[in-house]
């Protein structure tokens, strides 16, 4: 790479060609004040704060936009520069309200700091200032004070360059210029608005959730990891007086860079919520009553001893990886391998073949492209979308097949929306076409009839041909299979189709599923047929290793996965179920199976933060701590363990899951005293080789192979096919208890295609009654092209749509609409 050498303030520095003077100065440790420039976005040159003097150049230059040239002589502190900075600041402050005492940015405001350091001290502007209405709520979480805005355009450019959602725009001209949401209201709220708050250099954009709750000097920051989804974004958690008041992004280039999504930014108030469980409860005479820890634990211990080994454990998302490990160890000491962290899925393949998880996220930075298979990236793993967006901007090819239009479709080269459950057909057709283009069609693939597959999937052949063409041009792209496919009617066939496609086109495979520590829990051993580290249960080396660490060998017989466990419970073969931080009563897709399982259980134990549906049905409820309240390690989708520190004390009376398990171990006569979380971690590291702090886990993916499976015959049935989509903003037990988030989620709206709307006589905004399975809800309708005709887009995660009570009779779930009000009361 060619370099240039220049002199800044009398010191020479050599930088790669193309570096700006601002960065060259930074390399020398020389600080140049900036407002508009942000190193995650290209320079703009709007604020003029970064002036420097360059010899042989007539005027002062903005160092953020000026490319360093060979032999340049730059001065950053000359009298002219100092004077110019003073003038710029005086100018910026002309209309600035200077209401620092009531401004939430006070104490951490670049405008304050720069004015203090470089400003004039007094203003010559005595005329009345320009006024705007103050404290405008732009969204349930965002407050805008236009008077304070210095028009640096960071926020608007974030929406253009980084997030791609164009959530904020500049309006009007000159003196009246201001920031606002775009004139055409967005279909849905931005998912990344918290980042604009973080990068706004003044108090113009502030958090409506954090508003006035603390000053920076009140806050005690502790490093945390967001557990709302599986990305595992690094955070700073600011606590004041035992209350978590704010969450900020912690710089971690490999994971979240400097960003968070709004669920991470604003999803913390649940931990401070007064409805947190504070005492154990036990069921007596059919009702749950308060109990002491002794009593509750004794009851659990006795039931476990009596029923062992016919006991099982579910959950792990909310646990730390250490706690998941302790849970697995305790149940294995009882002779049971009935362990599963994947409590919300009917599809529970063996993690030896199909372990949820992704390769290193950094692979996106170099991949030639990404193929999203039923993966609603921006809804499920929002910050991963920011990384993908960066890759797409660099020229990577984005492809997708999904049963609904993805929010980010506009950025992808080719996105195919198919009928629900049709992804395997589309993928087989693509595989066949790709193989044809490459000139050799493997024998098995010849069975695939492209036209018939397209017809089944409801997709025009041209779309699939174009998809194949793009895929061939892109090369070995990264396949990311998401939740829409995992939850689809034929996940096995979809995975086989992905494998087939990989076999002809090449490319890595990511299986994106699971929140919080779900991937870590499986890695720590919460799976029926693998030991810690995804080692097969019968592996003699691993068994020996565990025997030495534990003093006993894990039981021989493979355990049951979630669905099988529930079947066994329903049949009375599984007596005790221990649910740690999961809500299968609400999240397990087959509610009637859950109900039968619950009825068949002798004892259901739940450790929880709130009265979830599962907790209400339990026999013993143990109050647990949230991820803000205990130390430990959390593993994200990459299998990357990251440490968290407690930022507040939990409610008195609640205990960490790890402590509960240790106490239970003592009562069961299997005491293990670890002394500290680190000790558990060390043992886990030895039990599960490959798990290293801050390193992605080396997942072994099955080799691609052509595996063509026949499609099931289509069923002719009445009603619209339900496409269950899980939006980022839901009304779950936790997010419903966070200020701002329920309002972001709003009321659920179902989407129907214009054709169906016309047939039903519906207009956008109409009110309908939707019957799905045994449930019925009154909701509004959006007429949309997000799904194909004959489909109904239903948001899950809202109390109106309890997925657990949608018993699927056939392959596909059907919904029936009854029109209550064909025209929307207020047009949107």
């Amino acid at each position, binding site marked *: 790479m060619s370099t240039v050498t220049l002199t800044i303030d009398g010191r020479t520095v050599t930088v790669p060609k193309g570096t700006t003077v601002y960065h060259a100065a930074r390399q020398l440790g020389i600080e140049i004040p900036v407002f508009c420039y942000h190193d995650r976005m290209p320079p703009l040159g709007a604020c003029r704060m970064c002036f420097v003097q360059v010899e042989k150049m007539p005027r002062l230059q903005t160092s953020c936009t000026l490319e360093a040239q060979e032999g340049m002589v730059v001065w950053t502190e000359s009298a002219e520069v100092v004077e110019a900075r003073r003038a710029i600041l005086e100018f910026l402050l002309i209309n600035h309200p200077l209401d620092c005492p*009531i401004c939430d940015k*006070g104490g951490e405001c670049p405008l304050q700091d720069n004015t203090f350091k470089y400003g004039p001290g007094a203003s010559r502007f005595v005329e009345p200032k320009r006024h705007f209405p103050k404290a405008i709520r732009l969204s349930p979480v965002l407050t805008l004070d236009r008077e304070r805005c210095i028009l640096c355009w960071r926020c608007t450019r974030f929406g253009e360059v980084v997030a791609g959602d164009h959530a904020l725009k500049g309006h009007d001209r000159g003196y009246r210029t201001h920031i606002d949401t775009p004139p055409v209201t967005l279909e849905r709220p931005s998912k990344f608005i918290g980042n604009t708050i973080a990068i706004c250099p003044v108090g113009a954009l502030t958090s409506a959730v954090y508003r006035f709750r603390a000053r920076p000097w009140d806050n005690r920051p502790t490093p945390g990891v967001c557990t709302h989804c599986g990305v595992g974004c690094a955070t700073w958690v600011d606590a004041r007086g035992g209350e978590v008041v704010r969450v900020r992004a912690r710089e971690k280039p490999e994971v979240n860079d400097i960003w968070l999504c709004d669920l991470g930014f604003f999803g913390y108030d649940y931990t401070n919520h007064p409805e947190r469980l504070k005492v154990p409860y036990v069921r007596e005479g059919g009702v749950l009553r308060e109990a002491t820890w002794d009593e509750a634990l004794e009851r659990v211990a006795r039931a476990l001893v009596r029923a062992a080994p016919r006991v099982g454990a579910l959950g792990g998302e909310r646990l730390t990886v250490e706690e998941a490990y302790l849970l697995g160890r305790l149940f294995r000491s009882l002779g049971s391998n009935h362990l599963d962290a994947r409590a919300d899925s009917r599809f529970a393949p063996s993690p030896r073949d199909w372990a949820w998880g992704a390769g290193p996220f950094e692979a996106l930075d170099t991949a030639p492209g990404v193929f999203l298979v039923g993966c609603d990236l921006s809804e499920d793993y929002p910050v991963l979308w920011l990384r993908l967006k960066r890759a797409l901007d660099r020229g990577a090819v984005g492809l997708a097949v999904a049963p609904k239009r993805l929010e980010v479709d506009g950025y992808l080269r080719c996105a195919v929306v198919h009928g629900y459950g049709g992804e395997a057909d589309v993928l087989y057709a693509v595989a066949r076409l790709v193989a044809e283009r490459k000139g050799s069609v493997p024998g098995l693939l010849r069975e695939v009839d492209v036209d018939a597959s397209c017809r089944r999937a409801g997709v025009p052949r041209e779309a699939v041909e174009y998809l194949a063409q793009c895929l061939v041009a892109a090369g070995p792209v990264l396949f990311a299979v998401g939740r829409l496919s995992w939850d689809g009617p034929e996940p096995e066939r979809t995975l086989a189709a992905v494998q087939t496609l990989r076999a002809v086109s090449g490319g890595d495979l990511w299986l994106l599923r699971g929140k919080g520590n779900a991937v870590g829990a499986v890695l720590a051993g919460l799976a029926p047929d693998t030991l810690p580290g995804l080692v097969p249960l019968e592996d003699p080396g691993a068994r020996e290793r565990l025997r030495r660490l534990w003093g006993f060998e894990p039981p021989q017989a493979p355990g049951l996965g979630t669905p099988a466990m529930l079947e066994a419970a329903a049949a009375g073969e599984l007596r005790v179920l221990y649910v740690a931080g999961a809500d299968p009563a609400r999240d397990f897709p087959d509610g009637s199976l859950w109900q039968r399982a619950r009825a068949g259980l002798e004892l259901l134990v739940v450790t929880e933060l709130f009265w979830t549906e599962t907790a209400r049905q339990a026999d013993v409820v143990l109050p647990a701590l949230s991820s803000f309240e205990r130390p430990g390690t959390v593993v994200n989708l990459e299998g990357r363990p990251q440490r968290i520190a407690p930022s507040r004390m939990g409610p008195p009376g609640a205990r960490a899951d790890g402590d509960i398990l240790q106490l239970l171990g003592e009562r069961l006569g299997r005491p293990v005293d670890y002394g500290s979380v680190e000790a558990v971690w060390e043992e886990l590291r030895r039990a599960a080789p490959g798990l290293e702090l801050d390193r992605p886990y080396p997942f072994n993916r099955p080799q691609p192979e052509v595996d063509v499976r026949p499609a099931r015959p289509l069923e002719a049935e009445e009603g619209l096919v339900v496409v269950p989509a899980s939006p980022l903003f839901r009304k779950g037990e936790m997010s419903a208890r966070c200020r701002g988030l329920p309002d972001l989620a709003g009321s659920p709206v179902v989407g129907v295609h214009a054709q169906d709307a016309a047939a039903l006589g519906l207009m956008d905004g109409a009110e309908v009654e939707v019957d799905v399975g045994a449930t019925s809800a009154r909701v509004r309708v959006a007429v949309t092209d997000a799904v194909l005709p004959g489909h109904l887009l239903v948001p899950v995660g809202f109390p109106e749509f309890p997925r657990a009570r949608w018993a699927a009779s056939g392959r596909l779930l059907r919904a029936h609409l009854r029109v209550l009000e064909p025209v929307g009361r207020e047009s949107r």
Partner: protein
Amino acid sequence: MGGAVRNRNGWQRVVVEGAAILKGMAVTLRHLFRPPVTVQYPEERPRIAGRFKGRHWLTLYADGTERCVGCELCVIVCPSQAIYVKAAENTPDHRVSRGERYAEDFQINMLRCIFCGFCEEACPTGAIVLGRDFELADYRREALIYTKSMLQEPYPGASGRDPNREV
């Protein structure tokens, strides 16, 4: 000079040091015939200097709104970390101060305060003033954590600050 002291002989020392003692005694003697400065507190009230700093008041504007906007500048400037402020937002039907923000909770730990007056100096609205009351004794420590209701002046101007003054 030091050398000179060390080199003095016995008689010279008697004269020089004796003179110093007599000088000191003369001051004592003079004060023996002056009236005493001791005040028979509490029967007698002490005279308090004009710029004495005593217990704090949170002052009000003439219309009764609070001056304090809960900015917490007094909190950060206080060298003994005696102040706790928790801010909240004014609403149209619950307007406590001018502007958007007010102090929902305001506490000063009088046991910690060293009456330096920094808080008064830092306050951008002139809300917090140190008054002249120094009689801050109590039987319990908790009683010396002054709450907002104790700190607020009972009526605008009660603390002596002109309620019509802007800042």
